[in-house]
């Protein structure tokens, strides 16, 4: 298993050997920021291509095929088109809030994205309250969506934003409860530590029944949190044209679009990290030969494989089920998921106290 902290600490040592510490830290922050944004953009592009192909597969189509082999260059062309389009400003709208909103959404998304540990030693924000910080960072996105709805000066946008706000605030509760269930099992909130504790089995297997319930709740609530089908009624095309980003064009719309897809990746990445072991290879206690073979596969391959598997699960759900109504969504959350989550948390406490987990 490669430990990337050797490389990063070597870079740090090399930089501090010929420049003052403050400048070196500043330079490292800039480099890490650029790498983070690059990875963010690449993941967004991969996700958009995957969405179109998976959607096509579930609808017995081929998806983009014309540009490049199997349509692989199509997404790059779309990005270029998006970058060159004019940004239209709406008359009688609150110009400042209208222009600010996409950046708040993208800020929340990037902050949450920076928490994900990609491989051993490759974590950017690794606080000892990591899980808590991730939830805090992702809760900022709601403000951006509400401001977008208000700033656009459009009825449909406002209704979409209100729906989205109600939905995201409600489903944050279920996400928090299901993550808390795993925090009870691990007794740590630091992401790198959570991954290390799964060396002898992923939490989905170690926590058996309560962990499985928490995983299912997390997937449902996570899908609703990123406003994707069957919970996509903030932007329900048939009712609201496009919801809160109806009035946006050019790269401002692009930012909303990218943030939505990367948020889906973040939800999947967190699911992969706390339930499926993150970058930790599949280890079965007792099978030494098997474990060593698995260790030869690098950590980031494991992480991305798990994360994209969860992405695929969520896309499957999206393209299979029809859209819910707003009252059905809120009923599902408040009358089913939250009570089940609370009982499940209690169950996990009992399991941990009596040491019934593996």
């Amino acid at each position, binding site marked *: 298993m490669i430990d990337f902290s050797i490389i990063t600490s070597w870079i740090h040592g090399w930089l501090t050997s010929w420049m003052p510490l403050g400048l070196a*830290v500043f330079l490292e922050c800039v480099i890490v920021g650029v790498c983070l944004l690059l990875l963010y953009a690449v993941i967004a592009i991969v996700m958009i291509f995957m969405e179109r192909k998976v959607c096509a597969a579930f609808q017995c189509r081929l998806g983009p095929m014309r540009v490049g082999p199997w349509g692989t260059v199509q997404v790059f062309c779309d990005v270029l088109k998006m970058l060159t389009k004019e940004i239209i400003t709406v008359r009688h709208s609150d110009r400042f809030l209208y222009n600010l909103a996409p950046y708040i959404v993208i800020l929340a998304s990037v902050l949450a994205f920076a928490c994900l540990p990609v491989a051993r030693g490759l974590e950017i924000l690794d606080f000892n309250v990591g899980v808590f910080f991730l939830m805090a960072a992702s809760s900022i996105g709601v*403000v951006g969506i509400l*401001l977008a709805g208000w700033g656009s000066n459009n009825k449909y946008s406002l209704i979409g934003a*209100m729906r989205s706000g109600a939905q995201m605030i409600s489903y944050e509760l279920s996400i928090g409860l299901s993550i808390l269930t795993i925090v009870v099992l691990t007794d740590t909130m630091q992401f790198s530590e959570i991954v290390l504790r799964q060396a002898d089995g992923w939490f989905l297997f170690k926590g058996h029944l309560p962990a499985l319930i928490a995983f299912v709740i997390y997937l449902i609530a996570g899908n609703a949190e990123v406003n994707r089908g069957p919970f996509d009624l903030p932007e329900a095309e048939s009712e609201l044209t496009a919801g809160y980003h109806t009035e946006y064009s050019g790269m401002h719309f692009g930012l909303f679009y990218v943030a939505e897809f990367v948020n889906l990746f973040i939800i999947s990445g967190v699911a992969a990290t706390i339930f499926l072991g993150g970058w930790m290879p599949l280890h079965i206690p007792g099978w030494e030969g098997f474990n060593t073979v698995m260790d030869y596969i690098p950590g980031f391959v494991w992480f991305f494989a798990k994360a994209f598997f969860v992405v695929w699960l969520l896309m499957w759900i999206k393209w299979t089920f029809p859209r819910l109504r707003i009252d059905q969504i809120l009923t599902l959350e408040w009358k089913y998921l939250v009570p089940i989550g609370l009982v499940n948390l209690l169950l996990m406490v009992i399991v941990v106290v009596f040491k019934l987990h593996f």
Partner: protein
Amino acid sequence: MEITLELIAFIILALFICVSAVLAATTKRILRAATYLLFVLFGTAGIYFQLNYSFLGAVQLLIYAGGITVLYVFSILLTSSEGDKAPELKSYKFIAGLVATLLSLGVCLWVMLRHDFLPQHFEHGELNVRTIGHALMSADKYGYVLPFEVISVLLLACIVGGILIARKR
């Protein structure tokens, strides 16, 4: 005084907070005021992170930026209509506000300049969450279990009040 990276970061954060706070108080549109308030809260969270107290910073983001501000924006969207602007300030109100502001500024400055600050107490590094948790839930000296429980009673009262107002019988 030596210029370090931390000092520069602090100055940037402090300027950001001050400018946003002034804008939040002076703007005429209520939703913009809420947005500038959000910026102030971001800046404060940034200062907590700079002090390496990541727990308080995350709480600041989750409760104030992600919770309270969303509540404000939500209620503004539900109640105010397009083109609502704050009325012109009357002069006696302006003078009263100015006097109150200067008075509280004087009190703050007086306390801060007269107080002997203790030398740096925390080691460089994060405070363990376990320590915070034990401090919050312990009933010993310096334990915070009583305020913790009282706040939960307050929240219960809020929920009951909300239901009472919302239910039309």
